[in-house]
């Protein structure tokens, strides 16, 4: 047993880094909620997580095994996508070049807004899960 993994009832595993990733996301959501700007949390979460899932899918296909700590990747994608908001909090207004952070400004204005990014996120998640399933199937007994 490591510090990051706890055995519960001998069956379910509560992993520390999963809980940490979720806790950080909840904290980030709370920070946006405080600014009456939940919309932006969703936008950057969907965009960052979808990007991370696309990268994860490529890694799974290439290495033929699931990535380690899969919840951390979307969190990292999310933090990259929202980085200009952290700069804004520090007193730096948004500028066009901040689109380098996964299209931080431009992504707000796609038709369908967050519903479009939700669809992109779910598509990326489906692709990742499919890649993981195929890897496991190809490794299993025939």
């Amino acid at each position, binding site marked *: 047993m490591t510090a990051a993994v706890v055995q519960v009832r001998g069956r379910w595993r509560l992993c520390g880094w999963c809980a940490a990733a979720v806790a950080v996301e909840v904290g980030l959501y709370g920070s946006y909620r405080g600014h*009456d*700007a939940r919309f932006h949390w*969703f936008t950057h979460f969907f965009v960052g997580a979808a990007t991370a899932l696309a990268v994860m899918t490529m890694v799974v296909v290439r290495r033929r095994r699931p990535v380690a700590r899969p919840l951390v990747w979307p969190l990292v994608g999310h933090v990259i996508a929202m980085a200009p908001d952290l700069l804004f909090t520090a007193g730096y207004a*948004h500028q066009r070049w901040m689109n380098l952070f996964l299209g931080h400004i431009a992504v*707000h204005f796609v038709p369908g807004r967050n519903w479009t990014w939700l669809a992109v996120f779910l598509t990326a*998640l489906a692709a990742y899960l499919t890649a993981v399933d195929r890897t496991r199937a190809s490794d299993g007994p025939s």
Partner: protein
Amino acid sequence: MWVAAAVGSVVLLSVAQRQEGPLADPDQAQQRIGFVDQPPLPLPAPTVADGLPAVGRPTVVLFLRPGDAAGQCRDVSRRVASTAPVVAVLAGPASCPGAAAVRVDPEGRTAAAYGMRVPVDGGPPVGYAIVDDRARIRYRTLDPDPAGNSREITTILAAL
């Protein structure tokens, strides 16, 4: 797992969108975007009152409803007046301490001239526009609590 993620995401997004208040922008992408000169800006700023906004100094133009005008005017003026005068456009008669000029505009002509958007409840906008020292509108947004978010105003002023 995918189904759980899909259902969870849809529920969370739906709940969050329904929690937006009556003063919020119906299109949240347009609210507090945080960067100046979103097209079609910059545009010439119409005069509100007492010759303001004027060339030579940036100006914060507040759009408020009478009910919360006094507190908003006082707090926003206290926090930004050293950088830019605050001009208030009120949807009805109210006091507005700290403002350099006040215009009561129940018909919303000034808000329309500034291109302020209509909030969810369909009433007068609550928010602000930021005018630069060449009397051009560089930023405008609905904001249910300009005083509470006054650091955003100073950040945008610094970006002019």
